[in-house]
């Protein structure tokens, strides 16, 4: 599996450089916001995880799957490699954004937003990223990355659409206290979804004919 991860990192390194540039750019942009941390970190986590999707696209472009499955790697390792890549990118994006926003916060502190709240916010956005990818990865293994682009839009747009339509339909949104409790549970929910999603993807890819 290390070999497969290396393959993804080598092929993504050009894109990674663009990401570093974006990191600095958005750090600068978000420094003008009321709270620079949550937007910036959320954005960076999602953008970093998008690199995992690019790795599927690169594989697709090179038609890697057929060659990859002629190597001594099991299908579980192929799936595991992509899940691990998503996780590493999520953590890397989150931690880098955390460091940069901590620097910004040091110069321009936000009242009531200390280290504890900052870590809490980082855990929240990372969990949301992991949760969204838990939905997306099995779809990519099932339908391929090109067809899954539509799912990607749907998955990202669905929560926003739900909030807006709830408001319009007069359905009361959950109270902030409830949301805060939910946020505490979010890392656990995300971890459980991620594991379940991995098992589903293994099943899908295990029986796939290349």
């Amino acid at each position, binding site marked *: 599996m290390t070999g497969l991860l*290396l393959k993804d990192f*080598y092929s993504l*390194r050009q894109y990674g450089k663009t990401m570093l540039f974006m990191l600095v750019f958005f750090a600068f942009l978000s420094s003008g916001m009321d709270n620079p941390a949550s937007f910036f970190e959320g954005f960076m986590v999602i953008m970093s995880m998008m690199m995992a999707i690019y790795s599927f696209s*690169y594989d697709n*472009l090179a038609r890697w799957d*057929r060659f990859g*499955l*002629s190597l001594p790697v099991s299908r579980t390792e192929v799936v595991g490699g992509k899940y691990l890549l998503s996780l590493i990118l999520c953590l890397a994006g989150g931690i880098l954004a955390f460091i940069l926003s901590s620097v910004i916060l040091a110069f321009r502190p936000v009242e009531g937003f200390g280290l504890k709240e900052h870590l809490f916010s980082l855990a929240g956005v990372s969990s949301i990223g992991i949760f969204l990818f838990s939905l997306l990865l099995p779809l990519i293994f099932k339908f391929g990355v090109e067809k899954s682009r539509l799912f990607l839009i749907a998955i990202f747009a669905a929560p926003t659409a739900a909030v807006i339509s709830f408001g319009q339909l007069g359905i009361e949104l959950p109270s902030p206290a409830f949301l805060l409790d939910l946020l505490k549970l979010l890392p656990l929910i995300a971890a459980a979804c991620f594991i379940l999603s991995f098992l589903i993807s293994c099943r899908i890819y295990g029986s796939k004919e290349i």
Partner: protein
Amino acid sequence: MNYRTDTMQSSIDHGPQHSIELTNLSKSFDQFQLKDVNLTLPKGSIMGFIGENGAGKTTTIKLILNQLKADAGNISILGFDHIREEKKLKEEIGVVFDESYFHDNIKPKHISKIMEHIYRNWDREMFSHYLKAFHLPENKIIKDFSRGMKMKLTLATALSHHPKLLILDEPTSGLDPVIRNEILDIFLDFIQDEEHSILFSSHITSDLEKVADYITFLHDGKILFSESKDDLLADYGLLLCGSADFSSVDKGDIIGHRENRFGHEMLIRNKDKMAKKYKGFTIDSVTLEDIMLFYVKGDHLK
């Protein structure tokens, strides 16, 4: 398959005597069926795998590599079960397809690092040696490589973990004769070790005439023959005659027939016997391409 008996006797106590043994292999798709494919590749030899596009060559290779699941039949590669012992088996084989499957933006030196973590037997020095021998730059992205360079890179990768079996799916297609010859020489070199063998699928029958020991001909999902190349070329012939003599030819002797403005051309077997039967007729030697064309495109008069 007349070669089976002599290879079986020679290696009773030396593990499996065949690199590939396919028994009654079948696989159905909506539009196509691979039916009862039997194929045996003895160690120390090169098997040419021929057939028109869509005949089922790539399907067979995908079944061997467990990329497709067979509906029926048995596959044994180097004595391993191709599903239960898939990883062990894949350590021992090198695969080259008709194009490079490496990402455009990586470099040969990266491939070595990747493969080091994939193959237990990866030989970094051997890979560097091949890169030098093939004049491939270590530090240039693959996007800038020509098709010939990409194929050589794939070949270097397939050879650098000391495989015992090479599975090649159209590795020389689209390459110029000079590069093709270089690659064929590498195959001949590889086969010097008696434990090594090659399954070589190709449209370029002249390549196979140069290197193959056996030829398996797949047509429309079925194996038409799997025989020693020398026997095939000695056995088959082209019977030539004018229109007047054509009616005297026993149609049961004709495998395939073609008429042109000079007369009739017929693919026949038992060349020596036929020479006696049809005195005064010309019988030419055949190439693998003739055999393939007459089977696939010729008129079948029976």
